[in-house]
């Protein structure tokens, strides 16, 4: 077994190939404790995003739980003007808000939007309104897919800041113990948590595009043979 600074390297932590000494393990646990809630949230959202990419079209089908519900957002051009949206379904359920797929008629066309609806009693909602359009378009599946890709970026951003938070603890409290391996272990774990989600989502998008191409190819060849 390897030794470092006279201590056995015998402690395994998730997502890190090396082993930590007792001192490193203690520093790791103390730093990870600071980010554990955000890490748990990241993993939960990562799992929820998988459903969005598996079948983005399904969210267009009105969910009976949201039948008749609507949200109002501020118009881009005039803050006092409200835009009325009907809720189709919920994409994500967070602790303090819901991310919804909504629709409205814009002229002759249907417009779809991903809207975050905050709790009306939250300080943010009281100052800024309780609903905000995150993105919109006329193809609901594409809107959902784009939202999932944006959310994936947010998860990576979240993971990189979690490493910064952990570094703050480690450098302020364990600087004398050469904590670079502790930081690497936390960094690897966060990167893996966010990275896995990205890989899975990209794979699902790729598989769906290939299936769409195959279906289009089959339709074309059937048209030629007819």
């Amino acid at each position: 077994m390897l030794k470092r600074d006279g201590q056995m390297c015998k402690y395994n932590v998730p997502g890190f190939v090396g082993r930590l000494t007792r001192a490193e393990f203690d520093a790791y646990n103390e730093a990870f404790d600071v980010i554990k809630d955000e890490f748990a949230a990241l993993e939960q959202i990562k799992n929820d995003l998988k459903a969005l990419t598996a079948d983005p079209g399904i969210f267009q089908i009105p969910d009976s739980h949201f039948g008749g519900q609507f949200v109002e957002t501020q118009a881009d051009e005039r803050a006092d003007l409200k835009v009325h949206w009907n809720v189709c379904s919920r994409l994500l359920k967070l602790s303090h808000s819901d991310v919804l797929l909504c629709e409205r008629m814009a002229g002759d066309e249907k417009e779809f939007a991903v809207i975050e609806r905050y709790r009306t009693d939250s300080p943010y909602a009281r100052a800024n309104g309780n609903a905000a359009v995150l993105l919109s378009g006329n193809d609901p599946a594409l809107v959902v897919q784009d939202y999932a890709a944006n959310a994936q970026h947010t998860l990576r951003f979240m993971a990189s800041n979690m490493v910064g938070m952990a570094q703050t603890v480690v450098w302020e409290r364990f600087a004398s113990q050469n904590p670079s391996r502790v930081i690497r272990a936390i960094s690897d774990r966060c990167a893996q948590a966010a990275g896995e989600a990205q890989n899975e989502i990209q794979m699902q998008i790729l598989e769906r595009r290939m299936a769409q191409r195959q279906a289009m190819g089959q339709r074309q060849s059937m048209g030629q043979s007819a």
Partner: protein
Amino acid sequence: MNAQNDEKGASISQAAKRLGMDSFSLYGLIQLDKVRPQRARWGELVILQVEMDRILQRPSGAPDNAEKAR
């Protein structure tokens, strides 16, 4: 974008709690440039009080409801 020395600022999770939203939502607002954080010494993002006041559309230095409740 370094945080001023005289004010530590709130971490993302602390700021999210004060705003009544999830950290994930706050990270999303930062990416949309609707919230402007600062970087603390080790790279961690922090939200200064002046930015919290701007987000909540209240005069700078007005007491925080969460603090008032304590």
